[in-house]
């Protein structure tokens, strides 16, 4: 996503190495994704579901 749009930055964080961050974001399971401090995604999702969730796009009914 970051490579596709200069507005996006993407960090992969090793949770056990940065425990303070893991505590801050209440990482109790992985993968856990945090977007702009507001959106939380727990677990892996298919591509479109993940991008939709990460960007806060409405879900398809």
């Amino acid at each position, binding site marked *: 996503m970051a490579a596709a*749009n200069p507005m996006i*930055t993407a*960090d992969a964080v090793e949770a056990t*190495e940065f425990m303070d961050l893991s505590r801050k974001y209440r990482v109790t399971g992985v993968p856990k*994704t*945090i977007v*702009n401090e507001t959106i939380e995604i727990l677990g892996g999702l298919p591509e479109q579901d993940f*991008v939709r969730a990460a960007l806060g796009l409405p879900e398809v009914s």
Partner: protein
Amino acid sequence: MGLLSPQDEATLRQHLATITQPVQLLLFTQTFGGSESGPVAKQILDEIASLNEKITVVEKNFVLDLDDKAKYKVDKAPAIVILSDDVDTRMRMYGAPTGYEFVGLVEAILVAGTGKIDFEPETMAWVQAVTTPTHIQVFSTPT
């Protein structure tokens, strides 16, 4: 002794052969008082770089290289900043890239080195429509 087996090296070399443009891996580590994973990260990056001449590893000191730290907005170490022909891809890895993180690192290098992003057209359109700063952090563990 290398971290990658000869078989893994052969497979990885094959994947990396698709790279067409230079990839720089900036590794920020802290020598004193830093994490023990810094040297592990360096060994992993060196082993990857040894498999393809277009990949280079550039070491940066987290404490001393303040200009680069600010330029690439690196706030913790060890950190890997991935550049595509000296252009920031805005992809970062924090911690030693072992286990699942290793796969993520290789995929990021392939994106940086080929310019190819493997998204469905619809997904790509959503991503390219983003107009506000968006910071994604993905937490994972090696196993």
